[in-house]
């Protein structure tokens, strides 16, 4: 009974991952039918050929990858400084401020500066805007990684005569690889999901996948919107699965030690 209830709950949670691809493949799906009237790749071909879906997919991947890489690298380094700072809590509170703000409202606050610097409506502007949201998150994420144990390991390298370069290259980076991968994954997701700020800063000219999905919903084209949604949810799920497998393997290795 309990197992069935749990299975039912899981079924409800994963339902959109089946429903949205099915809608994207449906030739038509009118009320009150529970299943589509037919399946074809017609919408996929159309969206790919004239709907700009391929461009949006590439744009989203590039944007999310660049933002994730830059914010993870800088966030990791700055979190190291903050973790060892005597005003660590105050500095961490500063990182929470932009992260807690609604991205769309933050974007409206910054719109004037983006216009003045000619960054509004450009890819560079969207990248910078997304970075301003993702970077504080990355700092928050990594501050907890810099535990006293890790700081002591670094101190030990210096005590044994190692240079800062040696400490980073031979100790801190290898030890932090799982955390860095996790940070990359989470920052990628944050940038991949971003819609509100991208519409304001990009002014509709930088059409990432979330922007495209909203555009199709507005055009009352549920099939294309479902297609865009499918492309938005399945790649992160794959990353999530890889992350989950990796974490499980790591825990299993620790448990078997």
């Amino acid at each position, binding site marked *: 009974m309990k197992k069935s209830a749990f299975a039912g709950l899981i079924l409800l949670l994963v339902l959109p991952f089946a429903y*949205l691809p099915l809608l994207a493949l449906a030739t038509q799906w009118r009320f009150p039918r529970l299943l589509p009237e037919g399946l074809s790749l017609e919408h996929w071909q159309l969206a790919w050929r004239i709907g700009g879906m391929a461009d949006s997919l590439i744009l989203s991947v590039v944007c999310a990858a660049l933002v994730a890489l830059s914010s993870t690298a800088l966030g990791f380094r700055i979190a190291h*400084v903050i973790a060892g700072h005597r005003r660590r809590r105050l500095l961490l509170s*500063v990182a929470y401020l*932009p992260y807690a703000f*609604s991205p769309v*409202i933050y974007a409206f606050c910054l719109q004037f500066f983006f216009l003045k610097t000619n960054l509004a409506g450009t890819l560079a502007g969207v990248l910078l805007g997304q970075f301003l949201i993702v970077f504080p998150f990355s700092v928050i994420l990594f501050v907890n990684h810099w535990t006293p144990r890790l700081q002591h390991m670094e101190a030990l390298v210096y005590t044994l005569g190692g240079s800062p370069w040696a400490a980073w290259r031979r100790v801190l980076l290898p030890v932090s690889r799982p955390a860095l991968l996790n940070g990359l994954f989470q920052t990628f997701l944050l940038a991949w999901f971003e819609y509100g700020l991208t519409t304001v800063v990009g002014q509709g000219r930088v059409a990432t996948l979330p922007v495209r999905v*909203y555009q199709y919903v507005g055009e009352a084209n549920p099939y294309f*919107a479902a297609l865009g949604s499918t492309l938005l949810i399945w790649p992160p*799920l794959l990353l999530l699965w890889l992350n989950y497998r990796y974490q499980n393997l790591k825990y299993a290795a620790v448990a078997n030690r």
Partner: protein
Amino acid sequence: MRKLLLTCFFALTLLPLVAGLCYALAYSLGLAGALQTGFTAQHWQAVLGSEAVWVSLALSLLIALVVVAVSTLLALTTVLAFHRELGASRLRFGVYWPLAVPPIVAAFWGFQLLGNSGLLARLASSIGLIGGPEEFAPLINDPWQIGIVIVLTMATFPFFTVVLFQFYQSEQVPQLLQIAQSLGASGRQRMWRVAVPVLLQKLRPLMVLYGVFLFGAYEVPLLLGNQSTRMISMLIAQKFRRFDLFELPQAYAITVLYAAVVLAVLIGLRPGRQTSGRLS
């Protein structure tokens, strides 16, 4: 190097936010922007006297509170009822799946699920509960914002479940429950005096932070919200996007008001406060 990195940190976090808010405040007071007329409080008077603004703020706050409360309740129930399945079942990864759904897709999925001709309406029709789409209860763009609450809860509760289950393991709740049992605590006492307080205390910072996010939620109300009563981010976005330039100072004033509420919550409830480490 440390100073350079800290300067970089402030330049990328605090500086844009403070600059944006200062500009917003100056614009709302007539001191900046294309409409600057010299200092005036008329836009602030209009905003503070506007019922729509207060309704919007109250609605956003209410939705955030309801979604956090319902999600916490659902997550607590799931973790306490299914802790074995969450730890060992082959299906347990399914709880993580909703974490891969962006808000805009959650909103679209909500539209497809709850709409008048959506999946629920089709199911109701197939078992003879309704004759047509018009007979299905309005859950989208409804005056009570039920659709928004359902979709935001569907997006929040799995995340809370994942986090709570991690706390369940890290805080060694099963062991605590066993000790409570050996000390003679009843099932209800173990639940309400041990498991729930331990888990809620750990979840509290996340509840506050998520409440702040939900307060400024944009994508879901954009697709599922009612046009007459809007959440605060929708109200601000609509004022910014109107063709009437004279609405801009008010839009900036509401932005400053929103920032004040967020800051007050963050300072008052301090979600970043260190709560890690076991209860001792």
